[in-house]
């Protein structure tokens, strides 16, 4: 071995530890015996100490394809068995809660839609419901129907990503391709309806940004037709498949009392036998008018959580279909509150240079009414005042109870926006699901929690 000192170019670690010693498995004597820190290379080179147990602490992540994002798992292994598991988060912390305190109430929507990027519309709606509760107003009926439509489409796309990433993590690349293919259908539809595939910022305090485009009904019906044909494929591919069943059945068990104590909501709680769905428990946005079931299971394992999500897609398709009739009923109704002190002043329309303020509105503020111009300017730059106070508004996101605790001091900006993120809270149940099981089952458990790190770290 060369006597030249070598330094790892990426980490700056001195890898030349001396003659005759393994550069990748430095040995260090502690009171508990020798500790090997393996930094790279081949597992075969890990020196086997005679008479020593096989206790290994392994860092999985934050960069690992099957940790569902930048999630770091610290696992203590005894052979293949996990004796302790802990989670380290924070790698994707972007300070969105703090950022909203320096934006107007309307601008904050643009931030919170980027938190849980697989359920942006649930975030937008929950936030806007909170702001509306503080304002003491309510969005018009058509806006509520549009919100329900978008939220259910979003629930479908989120569950499809669960199937796709979950399938990939457990080795089914076909599942991944299927899931993302169907999700693409939803994203195409959402792009048609809101203008963007993700980060829509379409739901605004007081209603939604604009009415649905012409021809939305036909597009949605086509989408439903395609999805109704394709969803049974998942049952054909996964539900009856022996490998899928053996990987998931009886794995990641979390009974009801554990789930409640750990605050787990959504499919995890429903898989343990409690039909707890906020759309039924305390309906918002007029969910009481829709006819749907809350799929529930008593198995409390990963397979039950998988099955519930597929069934929820089915139920969501039903709700989407029901919104069509209600949308037809309310055709032409306003989608934003009438109150001119809250509603966005400009109406949007497509002009020769793309989407923008409608020509009619520009003509009015630039040529006819100075007061309208002032009003437009004040509302866009300064925003509207929200009376002081605090509210907590929960909605049922694809991952569970998504709650917004919003505090106002009476100004034009939020004083505090706290998000009770279901991914963040549900992740705490991961040690309870995995300790005592096998390493391979950790992956299945994390996949069944379906955390979105953008939401966890915010």
């Amino acid at each position, binding site marked *: 071995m060369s006597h030249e000192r070598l330094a790892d170019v990426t980490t700056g670690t001195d890898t030349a530890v001396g003659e005759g010693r393994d550069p990748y498995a430095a040995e260090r004597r502690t009171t508990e015996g020798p500790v090997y820190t393996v930094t790279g290379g081949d597992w075969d080179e890990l020196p086997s100490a005679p008479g020593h147990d096989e206790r290994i602490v392994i860092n999985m992540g934050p960069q690992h394809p099957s940790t569902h994002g930048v999630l770091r798992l610290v696992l203590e292994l005894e052979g293949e068995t996990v004796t302790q598991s802990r989670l380290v988060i924070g790698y994707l912390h972007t300070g969105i809660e703090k950022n909203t305190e320096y934006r107007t109430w309307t601008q904050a929507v643009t931030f919170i839609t980027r938190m849980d990027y697989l359920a942006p519309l649930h975030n937008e709606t929950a936030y806007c419901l909170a702001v509306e509760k503080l304002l003491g107003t309510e969005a018009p009926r058509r806006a509520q129907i549009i919100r329900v439509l978008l939220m259910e489409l979003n629930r479908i796309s989120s569950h499809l990503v669960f199937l796709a990433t979950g399938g990939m993590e457990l080795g089914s690349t076909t599942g991944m391709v299927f899931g993302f293919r169907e999700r693409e259908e939803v994203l195409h539809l959402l792009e048609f309806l809101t203008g963007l595939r993700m980060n829509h910022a379409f739901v605004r305090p007081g209603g939604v940004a604009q009415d649905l485009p012409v021809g939305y009904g036909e597009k949605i019906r086509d989408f439903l037709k395609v999805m109704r044909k394709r969803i049974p494929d998942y049952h054909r591919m996964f539900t009856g498949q022996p490998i899928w069943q053996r990987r998931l059945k009886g794995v990641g068990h979390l009974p009801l009392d554990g789930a409640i104590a750990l605050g787990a909501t959504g499919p995890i709680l429903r898989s343990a036998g409690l039909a707890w769905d906020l759309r039924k428990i305390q309906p918002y946005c007029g969910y009481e008018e829709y006819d749907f079931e809350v799929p529930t299971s008593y198995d409390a394992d990963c397979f039950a959580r998988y099955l519930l999500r597929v069934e929820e897609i089915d139920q969501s398709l039903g709700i989407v279909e029901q919104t069509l009739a209600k949308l037809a009923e309310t055709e032409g109704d306003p989608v934003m509150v009438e109150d001119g002190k809250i509603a966005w002043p400009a109406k949007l329309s497509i002009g020769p240079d793309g989407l923008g303020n409608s020509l009619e509105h520009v003509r009015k503020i630039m040529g006819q009414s100075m007061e309208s111009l002032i009003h437009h300017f004040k509302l866009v730059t300064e925003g509207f005042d929200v009376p002081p106070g605090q509210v907590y508004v929960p909605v049922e996101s694809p991952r569970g109870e998504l709650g917004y605790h919003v505090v106002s001091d009476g100004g034009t900006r939020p004083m505090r926006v706290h998000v009770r993120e279901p991914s963040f809270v549900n992740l705490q149940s991961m040690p309870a699901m995995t300790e005592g099981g096998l390493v391979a089952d950790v992956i299945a458990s994390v996949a069944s929690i379906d955390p979105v790190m953008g939401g966890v770290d*915010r």
Partner: protein
Amino acid sequence: MSDDETDRRIPVRGPLAGESPPSAAELTPQEEAEHEARGGVVAGRSRQGMFGVRGSGDTSGYGGLRLPAYVPQPAQRPYGDWFDDFTDDLLAAMADNGIPAEAIQQVTVDRGEITYYVRREDLLPLCRVLRDDASLRFELCSSVSGVDYGPEVPQRLHSVYHLTSMTFRRRIRLEVTLEVDDPHVPSVVEVYPTADWQEREAWDMFGIVYDGHPALTRILMPDDWDGHPQRKDYPLGGIPVEYKGAEIPPPDQRRAYS
């Protein structure tokens, strides 16, 4: 009135509309006594100047506007809805378990939500009663969050708990007010294990110390981070501009229309 006096005054006030801001001189002894008696819950910063003017005058906007701090008003019986029966049940359960009625400093009913301002030393036994008593049954602790009302407000840090009763389908809010010099509050992790990460987050972001927490470490920020980012007086960074050493000021120092 000097600035010092402005800061020290206890901002007790009525509804916001059409009322002049109170000052220390305007508070009658009786009002002050009432304020003290209910535990002195203060929760809001006063605002002045239409364009967020602080210190020097504003040349482009109206700097004379003074809005007093918002203080959640104590609710008077009847509270309405299910709140009255529930509060009776709660007080009875507290008496059964030896928690004094003074543990609840103030009750506020606002926008259909009920808030109990709780003395911090009684928080943990109160949570236990709320979870275990058959007439209350708050099985789920939905959310724990910190709120900072800003440096000029007494008791500026608040630890807020949203509890959900799955049996009775009710939600309540518990709130503990803290001085920034003594930000200690007992941890509720032993009653609600789900509060573990949420308390760590509140410690990380606001520096609220949850006594008795099994491992109160930072969760979102790096372990060696200084300060607590979501406090209102946490210094924000500006953006340097590559020209003559100019800098885009941090968001809290920009001209603001608030």
